[in-house]
């Protein structure tokens, strides 16, 4: 018995849709095995992990708080990835957005009024875009690999923030704790429904960004440009679309959205700068982007699912005493299975019994590109 992958004549629309669900099912199965090995009843663990965290209204607000940055960042990243440009450094852009946006409440706390929040959000986007422009510049000028540079800049940003809150920006009345002063009232992102829960405007920004980017990608010339350059760069050049311009566009856009997520998180959920302001949103958003099929509307759904893995991780830690690292494990498994299931979009699986004489698998693999070319 042997499994063989046979190239489909064209991509399967059915599996393009089903793949995330199959991946989710496989993640649940693998998760059940993991819980069983940890000595916990998988069913009750799943209830604590996936159901209890969203059984009350205030918990849904917590879900929205976690989902907002994931969706904002992933929507930006989806544009990069559709253009075949690989921004892996959203975590750093998130942090720089938070730092830039915090300039007003930290350095000018006496500046108050309705203008503060819009300015902070704007500065946050500028900060994220600025930080994303570095790998873009390096790529267009020196042909450096943007995966590497954008990833390495994440660590620079993390350490820079750490230095800021321990050094120049530390709260003088903070008893030496590494944090800035608490933001003033006019620098805090308002909550949507203060009576029901803590969710703030960040979630609205995420939804608006998702709809706008969806419009751009599906209806606008700019989105067409992104798709052409991503799928056939030479045809894109023939169309007159500049690749370098596209590198900057996608990095600046995704950087700005990550920066917006960063300042929204700091101004809304945290209320001050700390050494660590993100539980890895910038990286988890990569999973969100792919789980959402690089489609902004799919990303909204995927963002909610991944947000739930964070909440579930906290829940199993408090209820069952299992490390909240379990959230990371779930996220990792999800990405693993999504990428694996995506194979089904382009290939179908053929089971081959040993009784039949067939050519060796290598011969078939090697002809796979040929089939595509010859079509």
């Amino acid at each position, binding site marked *: 018995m042997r499994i063989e992958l046979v190239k489909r004549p*064209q991509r399967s629309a059915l599996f393009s849709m089903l793949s995330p669900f199959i991946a989710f099912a496989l993640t649940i199965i693998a998760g059940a095995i993991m819980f069983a090995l940890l000595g916990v009843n998988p069913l009750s663990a799943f209830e604590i992990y996936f159901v209890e965290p969203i059984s009350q209204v205030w918990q849904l607000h917590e879900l929205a708080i976690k989902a907002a940055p994931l969706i904002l960042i992933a929507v930006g990243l989806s544009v990069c990835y559709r253009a075949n440009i690989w921004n892996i450094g959203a975590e750093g852009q998130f942090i720089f957005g938070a730092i830039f946006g915090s300039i007003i409440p930290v350095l000018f706390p006496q500046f108050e009024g309705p203008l503060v929040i819009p300015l902070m959000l704007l500065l946050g986007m500028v900060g994220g875009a600025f930080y994303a422009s570095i790998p873009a510049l390096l790529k267009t000028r020196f042909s450096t690999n943007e995966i590497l540079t954008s990833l390495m800049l994440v660590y620079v940003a993390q350490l820079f923030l750490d230095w800021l809150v321990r050094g120049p920006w530390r709260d003088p009345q903070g008893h030496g704790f590494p944090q800035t002063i608490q933001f003033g009232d006019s620098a805090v992102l308002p909550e949507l429904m203060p009576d029901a829960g803590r969710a703030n405007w960040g979630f609205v920004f995420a939804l608006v960004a998702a709809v706008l980017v969806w419009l751009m990608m599906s*209806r*606008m*010339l*700019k989105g*067409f440009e992104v*798709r*052409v350059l991503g*799928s*056939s760069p*030479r*045809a*894109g*050049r*023939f*169309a*007159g679309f*500049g690749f370098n311009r596209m590198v900057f566009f996608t990095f600046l856009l995704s950087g700005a959205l990550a920066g917006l997520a960063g300042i929204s998180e700091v101004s809304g959920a945290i209320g001050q700068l700390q050494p660590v302001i993100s539980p890895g949103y910038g990286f988890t958003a990569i999973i969100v982007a792919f789980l959402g099929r690089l489609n902004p509307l799919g990303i909204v759904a995927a963002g909610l699912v991944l947000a739930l893995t964070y909440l579930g991780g906290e829940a199993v830690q408090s209820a069952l005493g299992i490390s909240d690292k379990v959230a990371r494990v779930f996220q990792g498994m999800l990405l693993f299975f999504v990428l694996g299931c995506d194979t089904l979009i382009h290939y179908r699986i053929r089971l081959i019994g040993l009784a039949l004489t*067939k*050519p*060796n698998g*290598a*011969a*078939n693999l*090697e*002809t796979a*590109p*040929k*089939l*595509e*070319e*010859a*079509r």
Partner: protein
Amino acid sequence: MGGTVSANHDRANLLEVRGLTKIFGTLTACDHIDLNIAKGEIHALLGENGAGKSTLVKMLFGSLEPNSGEIFWDGKAVKITSPGVAKKLGIGMVFQHFSLFEALTAAENIALSLNDGSPISTIAAKARALSFSYGLPLDPDSLVGDLSVGERQRIEIIRCLLQTPQLIILDEPTSVLTPQEADKLFETLERLRAEGKSILYISHRLEEVKRICDRATVLRHGKVVGHCNPRQETAASLARMMVGSEVKAVVRAPAEGIETAPALLEIRGLTRKPATPFAIPLKNINLAVRAGEVIGIAGVAGNGQGEFFESVSGEVLQQDAGSVRIRGKDAGGLSITGRRLMGAAFVPEERLGHGAAPRMKLSENLLLSRHATDGKAFVGSGGMVKNGAVYSAAQRIITAMDVRKSAPDPEAAALSGGNLQKFIVGRELDRKPGVMVVNQPTWGVDAGAAAHIRQALIELARSGSAVLVISQDLDELFELSDAIAVMHNGELSTPLPIAEATFEKIGLLMGGAEPGHAEHSLEVA
């Protein structure tokens, strides 16, 4: 050289096909096909685009499974379930669209398909020996990305020969070759035939089928319409069998008053350094194309035509803005979009991946080259694409060019080469451009479609546009052009008026015979 070997009806059949049928949905692509290929014969498979040639060949090579029918190899019934099985039997195939990795060398590409673990150096040596003995000059260590189409084809042929096949299937092999290269290929094929190998030769070029093929099988609409000895037929009678009616000959109305017409496209002292170590530098190219005329550029593959097209189209900019002038204005510093806005239109050599994005719909591919020139019609306020307008314009082009397709707005990759080419040329003609530059307008396109495209180009010129055609197909250039210039080693000869041009004169120029080219040896590379 043709006609010396008689048809081999008396010999045993290497391959017998009985009632082979392939159905796609409601379309019967191959309908009870019968075909015999004898040992040591060159067998032609003729037919228009969509006649079922590719489907038949894919079934023989194991890429497609037939719905019914039998295949006998050496008298034994076989099932060819995959290309691996076909190779094991001894069937080799050279595709029209090559499957080569550009970033790898020729030898590495060959090693990938052999997959037997022998070291690259051994393979390179074998390939070199084979290329030498069959007269197919090739440097196994050169990068595929730097090679011309003709050279890439040699890699495919050598790769196929290294597997010592008994039957070699060649799909449109001469569509990228010049007379000299084609002659070389025919010598190779005749040598293979003398060794007792069989060849299934797919072509639209009836003259060469008459010249080298022993027998022919003609397909039309998925059915065999006849077996014949091509040497006893005329090109016209073969074409009639293929198309089912007479092929309209291209009519070139006499061009009047060209001498006094303004030059719409001028190239002045165009020079370009090689972009890669294997690219051809362009050396001081001068050319003027006047309103109303078609100028052809002949040349052996890989003599700078690709570099020239990139420079003229604006995919690569010039430092001297005056080296390319469109409608009397400097355009050398403008991008391809800027040049399009001045009234120029371009059709590149590669259809999939350059002229069209393979995975995008035809309507999206229309937008690809016309988003700027038809900005008002196709793009609304705020950069929103007017999908309805683009779709109806695409349908207009599809109708005007008689593009045959399986869906209202299919992906570019789903069309046959000829039909996609009709769309890509039609996309530009639809704009009525003042300047049209076309590289290889009918690369691997069947007779009917090619005549349609050529006629359309002539009519564009006669309506007052300047048309520049780069082609390796001399027949085509003689059919189309008012004057023919030759590109050799990055230099362009002065255009010869068509009345003075002969195959011999142009052929000599292609070998580098013009004064100033004398230092270059006569090379067919």
